[in-house]
């Protein structure tokens, strides 16, 4: 990695080392453009998902994430919560849900409460959110 070799960062635990080594081996092939990482930008984010850079696909951008938390700011409603993660080719390859559900006898319908969902040590190019509308991210934006 040209600017920051994440695999050499101090304080990584063994799972993080493995993840970063595999990311480097996959996306930083020497002389193998477009898989040639040119920048690794530290990134923390807490805020609304809508309109954030995490929802936008770019073939030259990848997020490697130590800690991802999805949250919802409202009460129970008819829709579930889900985060969909996409790989470098813009194909969905992982999902996150943590719903609690109950039957509401007055509305005669099943309602969802969307608990926070957490994933650690994951990579993705973008996310798509269903109902979940806030997120926390700690990791890096890779450009290649």
């Amino acid at each position, binding site marked *: 990695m040209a600017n920051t070799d994440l695999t050499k960062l101090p304080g990584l635990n063994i*799972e993080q080392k*493995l993840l970063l080594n595999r990311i480097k081996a996959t996306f930083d092939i020497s002389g193998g453009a477009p898989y040639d990482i040119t920048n690794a930008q530290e990134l923390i984010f807490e805020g609304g998902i809508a309109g954030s850079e995490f929802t936008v696909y770019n073939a030259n951008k990848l997020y490697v994430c130590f800690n991802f938390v999805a949250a919802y700011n409202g009460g129970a409603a008819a829709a579930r919560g889900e985060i969909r993660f996409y790989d470098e080719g813009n194909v*969905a390859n*992982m999902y996150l849900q943590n719903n609690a*559900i109950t039957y509401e006898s007055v509305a005669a319908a*099943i309602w969802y409460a969307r608990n926070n969902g957490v994933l650690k040590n994951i990579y993705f190019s973008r996310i798509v959110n269903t109902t979940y509308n806030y997120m926390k991210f700690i990791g890096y934006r890779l450009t290649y």
Partner: protein
Amino acid sequence: MIDIRSLPGLNIEQKVFAQTFYNQFNWDSPGSNHHIFNVEPIIYQGVIAGSDFHAGFYAADKLFFCWSLVVSYDANALIAASPRVRFYDELGVINFYGQNINMTYDSALVSFFKQINTVYFDNLWFSCYDTLQYNYMKFVGYKITLS
């Protein structure tokens, strides 16, 4: 070849896990399937079906040593069927299960319905696994080849 026990940065639980795993699967000569022949680091995010992890690809000389496994479902799972993850040991025998269900009673349909939430595992070994409902996964760990 990587010796997982000697990697820097292991916490105490991981040290116990790795040491015990090697004691169990690396104590005999090649040809016994109790000898570690290769350790391959793997990360994987994707579908379970057809992957190397699935029970349809069980092999007596293959194990997965896992720091982190997350299993998930890609849709609204408000359905009657229960989700489940079943892990198999080195002999292809089921030795562990996982599920994270939230469910509710629908009085109009007089039936229980299930919501399939994401389920998490860490520091786990298995030869393969199969699932009901769950269809996506994340894996960080190693593929172990025995000889």
